[in-house]
């Protein structure tokens, strides 16, 4: 009886320790991101530039823009999330703070999830925030916005989590940009397909329920499995 209670108390205090450490880590990463806002804003700037280049290079017909809008938005989001991954683990690996995280006696996967969540907040969520303007520029009607935004919200979560695995594996490699793209892009193709499909349906006036369910399922699947893969990948990188 007492043994069981002790066990429960220890589990509870372990959870509290993890929450405290994860919160401290999130605060630290947010503070660093604010001090280096130039680096932090780069991915969303890239997203804006890439998607607005499409209308400039095409006939300015609304029907044509509407046709390419899903592809432009999603390829832009995919490439910009790839660009952002370099910020995730590389510097922490170089200055030794990642080793300290691995050696603090708390579940490594949990801490890396906190790190990835902050990374999504800084590089994934801004894409969703600017998406209404860009979708409007590409001729999407206002009625399409809810579907587009939900799709991007779910899609960027999945992209951040998949990307974290690739970033962990390549953090020890110099100039890993192209290697990272080769690792991550094939895994990100389902997100691209269903995200673009959802966007196309939303623009044509339907509610893209099926595609959104699949995007949600992918987000849940990666959120459950990716943490352990990320932790394993980062441990290999630290050796």
């Amino acid at each position, binding site marked *: 009886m007492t043994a069981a209670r002790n066990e429960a108390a220890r589990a509870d205090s372990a959870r509290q320790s993890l929450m405290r450490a994860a919160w401290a880590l999130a605060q630290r990463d947010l503070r660093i991101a604010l001090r280096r806002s130039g680096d932090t804003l780069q991915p969303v700037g890239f997203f804006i530039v890439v998607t607005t280049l499409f209308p400039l290079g095409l006939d300015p017909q609304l029907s044509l823009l509407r046709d390419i809008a899903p592809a432009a938005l999603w390829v832009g989001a995919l490439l910009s999330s790839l660009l952002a991954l370099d910020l995730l683990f590389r510097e922490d690996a170089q200055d030794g703070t990642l080793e*300290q995280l691995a050696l603090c006696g708390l579940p490594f996967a949990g801490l890396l999830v906190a790190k990835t969540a902050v990374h999504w907040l800084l590089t994934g969520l801004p894409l969703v925030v600017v998406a209404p303007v860009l979708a409007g520029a590409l001729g999407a009607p206002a009625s399409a916005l809810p579907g587009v935004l939900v799709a991007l919200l779910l899609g960027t979560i999945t992209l951040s989590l998949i990307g974290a695995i690739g970033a962990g594996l390549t953090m020890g490699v110099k100039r890993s940009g192209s290697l990272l793209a080769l690792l991550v892009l094939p895994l990100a193709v389902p997100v691209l397909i269903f995200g673009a499909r959802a966007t196309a349906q939303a623009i044509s006036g339907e509610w893209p329920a099926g595609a959104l369910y699949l995007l949600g399922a992918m987000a849940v699947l990666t959120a459950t499995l990716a943490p352990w893969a990320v932790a394993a990948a980062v441990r290999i990188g630290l050796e």
Partner: protein
Amino acid sequence: MNELTAESLHLWRGEHHVLRGVSFSIAAGQCLQVTGANGSGKTTLLRALCGLVPLESGTVRWRGRELSADRDAFHGELSYLGHDNGLKADLTAAENLSFATRLKRPLQTGEVSAALERTGVADSAGVALRRLSAGQRRRVALARLLLTHAAVWVLDEPGSNLDAHGQSLLAELINAHLTTSGLAVVATHQSLNLPTPQVCPLALQ
């Protein structure tokens, strides 16, 4: 029993047999001083003890339990200072230390400034780390060791970049840690200036 023991540790790095049957045992209040030529595997041994590099064979025991059985419990009592200081260049010394402490335990007010005072960099508390000299950064990293309240210190060339006064400060800190029944594993070429009975030498070939 606070005891750290290692039995016949072996580790290969590619074709290179780095650790060839390393064994040692230290108890509370003792310091293992690891010496050896460059490339003899001092850093590898320290990283393997911490569990950052997997061992090929051999066992490490902490308080009589194998490390592989309960690594998190050992890490909870461990403080590691490697070649890199493990501090963020964009944050101030105080911010770095309060983060490093909260990673391990709740932080009380005044602790950080007391630790910075002890290592002689109290003036730098509010300065971004990238503006400090290499020696000052090392002193901030030493303050981190004090704050984590760990039983085992694993230090890799802790005296690098420190001036003469810093070296004697380091000896004082290690000595104080050992007298409060802590353990230390230190890889260094320099003499640690510790009382002889506390030091167990280990020379790697």
